[in-house]
């Protein structure tokens, strides 16, 4: 038994690691630059501002990037082509990196591309240093706009278009004419990229090893130590946010699980004992209907009909209620209970119906077996047959479901918490998704996966405890 548990836990760890990798790479695909979101910058927004602004902005960007560990290589190793330098991850801006990556993929000559990138930066600096006068403001703004476009695009036609745009504005004012030198250098650099293209380099594979200091490793080892990073939305530590949201979800779901098992098991047994009778038919039908009723529909209906002044105003439509001063413990409990009734109902009825049906099925299955007939034949009274012999055996399907309790808890909490505006984990997840707050989203997804696997582990172990016939050798 102990051996089995240990073995089971050993399987649990690699599975968790694989899941974490999958989630990490999903996170990489997320749109947007997290550093820019943290600094409240709009993407690629570089027009306007002077040199000092730019420098301090760059500094802040680099600092934030290092803080978020985004200046590290992504994974332990990378499979790229010979055309790519090992150090591409050191280019700070995500958008620039993507453009350069694409350019290397198309032309395969990093040396020239890098030179072009340097030229582009120095041209930008030159443009920023041009003093404003009455003649040039429009030209300066337009040129910088086009520079921003050059940073984000690499297709040949687009680049040519932006170049010709810049060219047309450069002649606008005498102050901008001075830029033509560095602009020619930029154009030459881009020409070099085109003429000295080494596309063949992209066809030769290269394997680079980065070691333990990489984004995934840091992210996952922090995760294991319960350091989940920062939320992009309100710049708070995610662990802190979870701490303030978990209580509601935990309370309601624990209550819900308790209620489910307390009602479902006796109901299932009752239904199975009266199989074919009127009471069983009624219970089975009601349970089937409950099982199929989408809980977000019921919750919406309940809010409309039981919580609004136009109809019955019996329950509060949202929140957990406020405490007024001088309330004692029981009054406070009353306020909470009053607010929790409807969400708890919507949260519970589905799983309650499901579990009862499973319990009934399991019980019927057991009651049809030979050893029950034997027990009856030797004259045991019915209750003893049911509770002593049949009950334990019919628990197996119910235990399997215990593994599903955790995932059901999290996905169930999303809709109920959103509809009833409860400050819990589900609402936090949905908020994060709506606001594209990816660190929070993926932390919650990984936590959910972890809890789910824990649920399955517990279910497997319980299985072994209840049914001694099962050996896990």
């Amino acid at each position, binding site marked *: 038994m102990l051996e089995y548990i240990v073995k089971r836990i050993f399987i649990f760890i690699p599975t968790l690691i694989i899941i974490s990798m999958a989630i990490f790479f999903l996170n990489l695909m997320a749109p947007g630059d997290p550093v820019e979101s943290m600094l409240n910058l709009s993407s690629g927004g570089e027009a306007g501002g002077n040199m000092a602004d730019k420098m301090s902005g760059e500094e802040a960007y680099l600092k934030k990037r290092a803080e978020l560990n985004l200046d590290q290589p992504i994974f332990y190793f990378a499979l790229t082509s010979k055309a790519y330098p090992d150090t591409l991850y050191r280019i700070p801006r995500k958008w620039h990196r993507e453009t350069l990556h694409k350019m290397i993929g198309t032309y395969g000559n990093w040396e020239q591309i890098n030179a072009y990138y340097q030229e582009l930066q120095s041209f930008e600096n030159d443009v920023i240093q041009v003093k404003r006068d009455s003649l040039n403001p429009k030209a300066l703004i337009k040129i910088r706009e086009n520079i921003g476009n050059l940073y984000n695009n690499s297709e040949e036609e687009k680049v040519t278009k932006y170049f010709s745009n810049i060219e047309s504005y450069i002649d606008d004012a005498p102050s901008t004419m001075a830029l033509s030198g560095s602009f020619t250098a930029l154009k030459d650099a881009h020409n070099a990229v085109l003429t000295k293209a080494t596309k063949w380099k992209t066809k030769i*594979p290269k394997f680079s090893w980065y070691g333990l200091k990489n984004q995934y490793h840091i992210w996952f080892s922090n995760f294991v130590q319960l350091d989940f990073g920062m939320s992009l939305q309100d710049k708070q530590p995610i662990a802190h946010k979870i701490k303030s949201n978990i209580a509601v979800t935990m309370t309601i779901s624990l209550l819900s699980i308790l209620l489910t098992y307390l009602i479902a098991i006796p109901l299932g047994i009752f239904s199975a004992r009266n199989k074919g009778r009127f009471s069983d038919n009624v219970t089975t039908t009601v349970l089937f*209907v409950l099982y199929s009723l989408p809980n977000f529909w019921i919750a919406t209906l309940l809010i409309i009909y039981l919580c609004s002044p136009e109809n019955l105003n019996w329950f509060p439509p949202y929140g957990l209620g406020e405490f007024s001063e001088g309330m004692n413990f029981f009054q406070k409990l009353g306020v909470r209970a009053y607010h929790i009734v409807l969400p708890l109902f919507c949260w519970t009825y589905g799983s309650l119906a499901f579990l009862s049906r499973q319990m009934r099925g399991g019980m019927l299955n057991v009651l049809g077996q030979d050893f029950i007939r034997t027990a009856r034949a030797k004259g045991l009274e019915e209750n003893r047959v049911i509770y002593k012999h049949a009950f334990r055996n019919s628990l197996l399907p119910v235990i399997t479901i215990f593994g599903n309790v955790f995932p059901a808890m999290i996905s169930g909490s999303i809709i109920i918490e959103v509809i009833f505006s409860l400050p819990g984990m589900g609402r936090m997840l949905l908020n994060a998704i709506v606001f594209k707050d990816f660190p929070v989203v993926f932390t919650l997804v990984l936590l959910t996966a972890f809890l789910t696997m824990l649920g399955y582990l517990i279910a497997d172990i319980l299985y072994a405890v209840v049914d001694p016939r099962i050996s896990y050798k």
Partner: protein
Amino acid sequence: MSNDLNKEANELNKGVNDLKDEQVQLAINNSNDEQSYWSNVKRQYKKNKRAVFAIYVVGFLALIAIFADFLANEKPIVCKYEGKISAPVFKGYMVDAGWAKWPKQFQNVEWKDLDYDFAVWPLIPYLPTNLDFRNDKFVGPFEKQNVKSRKWRHRLGTDQLGRDVLSGMIHGTRVAFLVGIVSMTIATFIGILLGSLAGFFGDNELKTSRASIIFGALFFFPAVFYGFTSRKYDINNFGQFLLSLLIFFGIITLGIFIGKLFKKIPVLGKQVAIPVDILITRLIEVVVSVPVLVLVLAITAVLSKPSILYVMVIIGMVRWTGIARFTRAELMRQKRLEYIEASKALGFSRVRSLLKHALPNSLSPVFIAVAFGVAASILIEAFLSFLGVGVPVETVTWGQLLSASRKATDAWWLAIFPGFAIFITVTMFNLIGEGLTDALDPRQKR
């Protein structure tokens, strides 16, 4: 004398033979009475009245889904306008497919305001996206509506922008069925593929030489590289993606093939088993460990543009595990049966006995999983559009209509009807799933 005896014996023999024939015929007749497996299942299924009823309801809903454009549309089905008879709804299909263009008199017109000689209108003369400004801000089905005549009434009311709710319900049926069918097709394909591999080959029946494994693994990285990494910026459509897959599997196959050349070398040529079952069960465990809903939400958040197609594909990609498990379990049972043994003895290849013999006999439980799967995917889609995540705003769905009721608590028609539609559809598919479970259960007395 002896001749007579012979004759007698012959006659007796003949009699015996006749008797034998008769018995054989009887046996055949009997077996016809017993009927085939599927007609048995059908009979068993028909005993369940609720499940049969569910089939009819689903059929009815499917008809609504198919003919949604003819039931609720802003264009007339047939009309005579400026002396010409035309069928605008049908024509609309041709225009959408790019095979035809609207004639001049119908370009950018408000269909309802045209002066027809005659027109046959759909039952509901609105598209779910039509904004009726004279009846906006939640007009109920029984309230006074600002319409020309009874025919133009919004029979189930309107929403805030004056969109017809009944029309939305009808077109929502189509979305729901599409989601159910597309996502379950994807899920069934993946599920049967992986489930049958795991179930049929198990952990020690897919054998290959060590050299093949080594070379296959060695060629994995070049396969990834030439298939995907170096083609990263070439893959911009589905054809390119298929080409990438082809390159990927081609290189791996090449590796395995090179491995085969080393068959004769003692250490490298040793046959070892690939633990297919362990690998696939682990994969199922990984996918199952994140709740479908959370996974779908997270993936839709990553996608830059919401699209109902993405939602279908994602649901299909994460909901295959049940089907895979069913197939795996059934194949494990089937492969121990004698007929597989027999096909082995006849010298058929493993792949042939899998594809032609074991798999067709193992698919029945898959139907159960698919029926429940359709119900679940319709529910997930409704849930997503209720939350307004992943499904574009301009696609009218049941979930979206229902969520509109949260903004107007007195618009009861928005709360009742779409929710009821979701409920009925989900329930009917669940009933079918239950009916199939009972009908396919071998323990049932036939």
